[in-house]
């Protein structure tokens, strides 16, 4: 059995990122979409931390810290927007939030 290396982490990151993308594209519930977005951001974090582990310096960890902060801000704004959707539509089913066409 080979030891766990960089590529294993990257593969896991890629799988998480794809799962997140899939979730954003297919989930109808706004909260689920937000969760999927978080999954995408955290896939990036996994990548960065893995790179930091296999590199001589800690730059990757610094990047990851920034990403965590940004993801938190994104989530805050996202939840605020979900609230606004709920106030106007009385539901958070994104498939039915489609009033404009042209």
């Amino acid at each position: 059995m080979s030891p766990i290396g960089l590529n294993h982490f990257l593969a896991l990151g890629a799988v998480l990122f794809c799962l997140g993308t899939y979730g954003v594209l297919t989930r109808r519930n706004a909260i689920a979409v937000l969760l999927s977005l978080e999954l995408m951001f955290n896939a990036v974090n996994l990548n960065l931390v893995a790179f930091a582990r296999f590199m001589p310096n800690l730059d990757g960890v610094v990047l990851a810290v920034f990403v965590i902060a940004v993801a938190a801000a994104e989530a805050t704004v996202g939840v605020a927007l979900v609230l606004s959707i709920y106030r106007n539509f009385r539901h958070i089913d994104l498939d039915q939030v489609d009033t404009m066409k042209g």
Partner: protein
Amino acid sequence: MTNALTMLQALAPEVVVAATAFLVMGLDLRRNPNPRAQATVAIWGLLAGALATVPDWLDTAASNSALTLWGGIFVADPLSVVFRALACLTGALVLLFSIDPIDTERRNPGDFVTLVPFVVLGLMLAVSAGELLTFFVAFEIVSLPLYLMAAWNRNERGSAEAGMKYFITGSVSSAVMLYGISLVFGTVGTTFFSQIATRYETLADPPQAFVLGSLMILAALGFKIAAAPFHIWAPDVYQGAPRPSAMFISTAPKAAMVAVMLRLFWGTLALQGRDFRLAETWMVLLAVMAILSMFWGNLVALAQTDIRRLMACSGIAHIGYTLLGVLAASRAGAELEGAAAAIYYVVVYSFANLAAWGVIVLVGWRTGSDRIQDYSGLARRSPFLAFALLISLLSLAGAPPLAGFLGKFYLFRALWEAQPAWWWMVLIAIVNSVISLYYYFGILKPVYFGAPQDQTSALVVPWRFRAGLLICLAVIMVLGLFPELTRITLEAGAAILAQPGAP
């Protein structure tokens, strides 16, 4: 000592704008906030920020050098000066156009006014970033307030929907960009623009992950500038968002992201001159994006009856034209022309678009409608507004002697200069310009030929609108008539050549 002074000079615009942002925020915390006064303060602050870029220009443009801080995290070169000033002016004009309708458009206007300087600050940092993480953080400082601005009309379904759509597409693009950044960082071990290319050269075999990462960054930028095939969000967001927000979304971030694209791809990710096949791939991708954007934008615009959706489509088409300049800039030997043409075009586009949106904001505020047929007889209700719309749309359509014509001309020239075999792309762009005439003049048709639907009244143009529109029109005309001014864009474009990462 000198170092501190240099630092202060390079950062002065950002410091001024940040101070303005916090001051305006503080004013909003008073017991009886006065949004108009806040907006006035913000406008003067932003103008001061634009003025504060002048010393940087004087220092860097003549010698074609750059002031770098913190080992290259922050770069003040002519390119960043032009776009920092543009961001400040755009922000100031957007505020100028939103003061009068401020009470009707949304419930708590003070917050809106506060967000504008923050977005501008983000834009300024984004165009001056010399490193991927700084760029990303700046990019988020821009995006988050813009999501909120799109969703500003809390009690209107369209606005909430626009905000949500903008948020989801924007966040996905942020995540995609981050993933791309992580891959680029992982393969070359640095995030500094100036080192990526040199580090890449030392790698034994060209890693696929690097290419994939750059591709994801390109796609994410494509989302931000609404280039096809990443444009789907634009029409809905422009239509649903409050008009001043849509005006802001359609101008400032696009211009800044084009600057970032130039900085990022030239010499950094395109690896010009090192791995020629990689550069070719970029050019093919950019060409596909440009052609798709032009055709999609122009053809779909033909069918629009809502002027805001139409402006969204027209914006997509204009990004297509601009990408031709970026494309030319990624070709060895034509970098300067291509970059200068793209910069000139996007500056001109910003002002023409601001003028057109200024009219849309005012008409929408007074009549509550964005349907093109409701613009019928505008020339009689307000000759000035009709004239402003005429000039801005003519410039967007590329009619001489306005700046839009010269802009297109420079783009086509740069593209041909870069690669004569691409003359068919020039032909496509010209055909697209002719198509675009149909819908621009389709707006002007009711404006000038139609009779006012209600015989009621003349449209009164408040002085702030008058002033803002006059400024935009003056810029369009002066840039068109005095092409000497384009030397500014040439010098800004030269900054890219002087980049440390450039071969």
